[in-house]
C-alpha cells in the first residue's frame, strides 16, 4: 500500500472513518510490511482491540529498530491518541527515509545514524 501523508491535526470533534484507519494501518504496513496490519477497513467494520494492539506493537518495533525512544500511544479513542499515532508514524517515515538515504550515500565518518535529528547528519550526493 502506498504511503499517505498522516493527519496530525485531529480534534475531539472529529470522527474516524474507515479511510482514516486504512491510512493509519497502511502507513505502518508501508514502513514495516511484516506487520501485516488490517488496512482494508470498510464501513461494516469495527476497530477491534486486537487490531489496535497490533498497530501499537508494530510502531514500537519500528521505533526500536531505528533507535528511537518513543512513548507509544494508548487505547483511548481521543484526538490526542490519534495525533500521537500519526505524528509518530510521520517521524518513523522520516527516519526510515533518512536511513535508506544513508545506505545509498557515502556516509561521513560512518556514523550518520547517531543523531536523532536528521539535519545534523551529513549526507553527500543525495
Amino acid at each position: 500500500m502506498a504511503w499517505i501523508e498522516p493527519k496530525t491535526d485531529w480534534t475531539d470533534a472529529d470522527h474516524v472513518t474507515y479511510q482514516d484507519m486504512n491510512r493509519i494501518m497502511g502507513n505502518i504496513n508501508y514502513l514495516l510490511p511484516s506487520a501485516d496490519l488490517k488496512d482494508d477497513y470498510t464501513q461494516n467494520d469495527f476497530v477491534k482491540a486486537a487490531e489496535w494492539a497490533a498497530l501499537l506493537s508494530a510502531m514500537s518495533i519500528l521505533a526500536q529498530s531505528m533507535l528511537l525512544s518513543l512513548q507509544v500511544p494508548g487505547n483511548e479513542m481521543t484526538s490526542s491518541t490519534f495525533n500521537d499515532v500519526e505524528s509518530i508514524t510521520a517521524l518513523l517515515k522520516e527516519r526510515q527515509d533518512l536511513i535508506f538515504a544513508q545506505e545509498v550515500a557515502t556516509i561521513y565518518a560512518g556514523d550518520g545514524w547517531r543523531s536523532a535529528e536528521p539535519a545534523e547528519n551529513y549526507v553527500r550526493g543525495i
Partner: protein
Amino acid sequence: MSRIDIENAKRIRTPFEVYAGFASRTETDLTFTATTVAAADSDIDTSLDGDGWAMRNLTDLQGGGFSLDGTAKLYDPTLTASSDNGKVGIRTNIGAGVDISINAAAQIAAVTIAIAKGQGTITANGTNYAIRRLVVIPVNSTSINISFANSLPGERIEISSITPGIVLDFNASNIINCTLGLRSDLSFKPTWQVSDIEIQAYYPDDLSEAISNVGDYAPIWYYAGYPEDYSPIRYFYLSEPAQMENGIITLKGEDASSLLEAKNNISQVIASKAGNGRATLYNRFLKFITDAGVKLINQESAPANTSGTTDYTLIIEEVSSRDAVADIMNLAHNGSFWPTYVDAGIPTAYHTKPQPKWDIYEADCGDVVRVVDRNIGKIATDNEEGLHSNVTRSTTLQTLEAFDIVYNQVYSLSPEGWWWYLAVTKGKNILATADSIMWTATTGTGTRQVNVNGQIVEQKVDQSIVTGKACILTVENQAIVETNKRPGTTLEVDPIARGKIYGGTTKLYPNYAYLFDRSNITGSLKTKGDPRWQPRDIFNFHRLDGTVEQCTMQDITLVHEGGGTYADITYRKGIC
C-alpha cells in the same frame, strides 16, 4: 432559575415533554441463537436479557465513523457484558438484518425488544411490527423465531435487549391523557391517602391479550419537564388489569404507599428517654413504612440525641401501618419536628419542618374557592384509656398462667391490660406483643410422683408458664379544650396510642393539642400545574389583595391532555 420555573413564569408556556412507561418483566431465563452479525456479546444469553446494562459505544466505522471525544471503546469480542463494561448486544452488518431464535425456560406471554438504532420491520408469528425503540411481541409459548429486516442500506440494526414480559414507553406523540392524583389528608382525623396515575395512550400493535395478563404491581414510571430540567421520576404500580381497546392502552397504577394497608403491626411498647424521643419516634415511624415493603428513595436521617434521661413509655395498639403513619403525622407535627412521609411515586421521609417551595399567584388561577370551617374548640374520646395517658413499666415479674401443653400444639394468652415483657417456658416460635403471647409447645405436660413431707403426691411437670411485667396505665384526660376556650366544634377521636414520647420537655406524640393550631381554612384552585409538586409541599399563595399566605398542598390532580397541562389543587392554610 430552572427551565420549568422560567416556563411557568410565562403566560403561555411551552408544552411539557411528558414521558411515561410500563414494565412487566418476568424472571424467565431466555437463550438466543442468531444468524451472522457484525458484533455481539460473547455471553449473549446473559447480556441480551439483562436490560440494566448500557450499550457500549464501540469504534464503529459505519456512516461517518466514530467520535474522538473519548467515549468510543475498542471492540473486544472476548469482553463479557457487565455493569462496568456495558454490552454490545446484537449489531447487524450494515444494511442487513438478522434472524434470532428465542427459547424460554417456561411459557412467556411476550418479549420486549429494545432497539438502540435502526429502522425496518420485525416479523414474528406471521405478524409485522415496525422497528421502534421498544417493540412488544406476543409469544404465549416457550419459543419464537423473530426476523429483523433492515430498511437502511448504510446502517446497522442495534438490538440492546430482548426481555421476557412487556415494556412500553409513551411520550407526547402517543399519550392521549395522563392524569396523576397526588394525595394527602390534612384533615383533623386523617386517613392515609394513596396516590394514583392513569395513562391512556395509542399503541400501534395489538397487545390486548398479552397486556391483559400482566400481574399487579408491575411498575409504571412517569416524568415531565423540558430537556435538561425534568421532574424526578415517579413510580407507580399497576393496580388494575391493563386494557387495550381500539388501539388505546389504559394503565392504572397506585404509589407504593398502598402497601401500608396490608401491613398489620403487633401491639407494641416503645421505651424512650427525653433525650432520644425524637429519634425513637422518627425511627419507629420509618419502620412502620419500610416494614410494609416501601423502599424510601429520599430519607432524612434521625435527629440527634440529647442528654435527657427521664423515661417515657408509649404503647401503640395493633394497627395497620397506614393508620399508624397517618396518626403520627397528625399528632406529632410541632416546632421544628415534623415527621412526614410523602409518596406520590417518590417515597420520601423527613422530620424537619418544611418551608415554602413554590409560589402560586391567584391572578393565574381559576376556580379559586376558599372554605372556612368552624374551629375546633374541644377534642374528646370515649375510650376508657383516655385521650392522653401516662404509662409506667413495672419491674415486677408476675406469673400469669400455667398451661397443660401437648407437644407441637400452638397456645396463646391475652392477659388483661398492657405488658412490656411477656415470656413463656417450654415454648418456641414465641410471638409476644403488648397484650398477648403466642407460642408452640416444645414438650408435653406429664406427671411425676414426689415425696412431700413423707407423703407421695402427684405433680404436673413440663407445663408452659406465662410470666410478664405490666405496663401501668393512668388516664390523664378524656378531653381537652383550646387554651383560650374558643367556641367551636367538638372533635371525637379514638386514640391508637397510650402513654407518650417526649423530646426534652416537649410532649411529641400523641399530642392532640397540636390540632388546635391547625387552620380551619381550606381551599381549592385550578392552575397551570407543575410535575414537581408533591402533596404536603408548602407554597406561598399570592392573593389578589396583595397578601401572601403560606399553604400546604393536600391533593394535586395533574392532567396532561391534548398537549397541555393543568392542575386542580386542594390545600389547607398554614404548614400542616
